[in-house]
């Protein structure tokens, strides 16, 4: 058998090939939608056609067999058409309303919940963690599983929320999980400066790149054993790990001190408010695998306090803006510390330059 020819720069398959016929026929001609119940949407076209969507939770990290299982369901209920969402849920696109319940039953028989629409907690956007990244200060998939186990009733809509609530996890400050704009975020953090392996460093790394990598200019050139090297001004290091990203000889992982921080009040949409960054809630909680009980409890507490206090259509950040940060710390019982006070480049803009405290 001759080796098949490789092809390059062909790009992804054209999306049209993958569109359900109803979608293809009504492309760009949708009129409105309704959320029939949590996890179930109907979109109605100008001409009256309808497409039903069942959204289901997914672990994102999965086996090819799991994908095949999803394909089985898609074939059984919706002519093989399925998609994934920007938050890694899976969506089944149904022409036939009657297939909705059987599909949901099949899913739930396999431990998969429908949900994630409208005013629910959707899937957690997350990253690789210990599963696949060298940079990780914590795991992602396990942490997400632990949190979602606890919050699943908010995903399915069993417990109602004032509005959408979006959680993200990133396992290091690179923030591949884009936790910087989430209602609640969990971020893996280091708490000690990198340890330098001088020998590897001079072989492997470019000194200028290392120096440029430090957000706080804490890395200075130096000479070690006659070789050009670097040293870290530990007083100016805030453990971001970026020097490690550019230079493998500056590992920063430290099982004793790595852990997670909790962030709140970000959002992406332009609905009502402009997009907002996530702000620090809890500077540090220990890495406690396999179930990170401290982190899970912290997130749950915030969700519950939000659910009790927010008004309809208020995202977490909007709720906090209304009640004020002092009240947020008060209601959640979270301690406000020196760490909460910004000291990076826009710090001055975060001081309270008014007598208005709420």
């Amino acid at each position, binding site marked *: 058998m001759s080796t098949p020819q490789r092809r*390059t720069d062909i790009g992804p398959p054209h999306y049209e090939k993958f569109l359900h016929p109803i979608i293809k026929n009504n492309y760009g001609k949708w009129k409105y939608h309704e959320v029939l119940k949590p996890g179930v949407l109907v979109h109605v076209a100008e001409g009256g056609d309808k497409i039903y969507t069942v959204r289901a939770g997914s672990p994102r990290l*999965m086996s090819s067999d799991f994908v095949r299982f999803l394909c089985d369901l898609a074939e059984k209920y919706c002519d093989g058409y399925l998609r994934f969402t920007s938050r890694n849920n899976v969506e089944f696109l149904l022409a036939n309303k009657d297939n909705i319940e059987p599909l949901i039953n099949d899913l739930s028989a396999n431990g998969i919940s429908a949900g994630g629409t409208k005013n629910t907690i959707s899937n957690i956007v997350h990253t690789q963690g210990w*599963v696949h990244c060298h940079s990780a200060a914590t795991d992602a998939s396990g942490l997400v599983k632990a949190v979602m186990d606890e919050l699943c009733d908010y995903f399915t809509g069993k417990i109602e929320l004032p509005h959408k609530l979006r959680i993200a996890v990133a396992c290091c400050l690179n923030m591949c999980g884009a936790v910087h704009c989430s209602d609640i975020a969990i971020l893996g953090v280091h708490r000690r400066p990198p340890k330098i392996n001088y020998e590897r460093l001079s072989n492997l790394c470019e000194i200028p790149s290392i120096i440029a990598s430090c957000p706080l200019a804490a890395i200075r050139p130096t000479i070690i054993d006659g070789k050009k090297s670097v040293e870290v001004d530990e007083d100016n290091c805030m453990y971001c790990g970026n020097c490690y990203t550019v230079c493998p000889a500056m590992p920063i992982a430290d099982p004793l001190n790595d852990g997670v921080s909790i962030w709140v009040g970000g959002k992406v949409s332009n*609905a009502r408010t402009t997009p907002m960054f996530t702000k620090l809630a809890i500077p540090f909680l220990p890495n406690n695998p396999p179930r990170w009980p401290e982190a899970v409890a912290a997130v749950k507490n915030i969700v519950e306090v939000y659910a009790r206090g927010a008004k309809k259509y208020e995202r977490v950040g909007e709720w906090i803006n209304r009640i004020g940060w002092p009240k947020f710390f008060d209601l959640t019982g979270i301690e406000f510390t020196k760490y909460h006070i910004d000291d990076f480049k826009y710090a001055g803009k975060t001081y309270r330059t008014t007598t208005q405290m709420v």
Partner: protein
Amino acid sequence: MSDSKTPLLDELEKGKWPSFVKDLKKLAQRSPKAKDLLGQLELSYKDKMTHWKHGGIVGVKGYGGGVIGRFSDAGDQFPGAAHFHTVRVNQPSGWFYTSTALRELMDIWDKYGSGIVNMHGSTGDLILLGVDTDNLEPLFTDLSNADWDLGGSGSDARTPSCCLGPARCEFACYDTLALTYDITMTYQDELHRPFFPYKWKFKMAGCPNDCVASIARSDFSIIGIWRDNIRIDQDEIKKYADSGLNIAADVVNKCPKNCVEWDGKALKIDDEGCSKCMHCINVMPKALRPGEDKGACILIGAKAPIVEGAQLSSVLVPFMKLEPPYDELKSLIRRIWDFWDEFGKARERIGECIQRIGLGNFLEKVGLDPVPQMVLQPRDNPYIFYEEYFEEE
């Protein structure tokens, strides 16, 4: 004690949310790579630290990106994890699939790799997790023959992604899927062969709800919007009111610009005062729709914190019509890349570069006129670099 080799991970088999451990343990029965991955992960759970080594350059011929090299520091204990590279497969626009296509892909993956996937990566790729260096070329060959190509990694244009837009959303103000496909095809070279100062991400959202988080997560954010008036169907408004929606509380009072009026009979919007935030439309999609003069707002510069702090994208072109062949857009992209090429430093994202050079200077260099829509407010400090002045005669 349990017999299991992964007692810690086994805890994650419990609970209401689907368990990746349960799933991967099943896979491990046929995939040695998956088995060793779980073994190494268990070790991480025990040690509370990662067991992956830093980077390592691997790839497929002629491509600079699309593969992330990954080597274990516990390869002796877990040989299947010793090489465990990632292959980023460029997903179809909007993450639409047929089961046939996915099955074909999974079969190829099982043939060469661990059988583990991410549906999907944070940037949008379909991620194949765990393949040996030697299998990269054959895997790629099979993929490409099945019509799949790689996505981006490294200092290149990353795999563009988009919300499902007109495929299933009535709010879409331009064709996000078509544009994403077009951009992806137009910039195949930039996507596969890193030559930028750093990574560059495109994300296309059909409306200001920004369901693909483009304003937070892409260097170049294209967000649909309209210029004319919100379309109102007063009958449907009445029906919402009749069906119990509290229009005063949920719409009028929540409008950030205070420009909705509701007298119990008709809804009025002061479109001049409206910031097109989508809220009223989101609440009453049957009754309200974006206007008809649609296009997109182009924003630039979002990124995660490192080095200069996280940034959101900021407005570059308040409104642009987006119709194939998208010449105006592509010309702008080209001018920006030329600028970046000339002025960008290594590992400096475009957003950081603009902040360093100054938005005003950047505009001049890419040939855009400054407009107040680009800023939340004019400067409040008097440190102005005047460029016009008189010389003594």
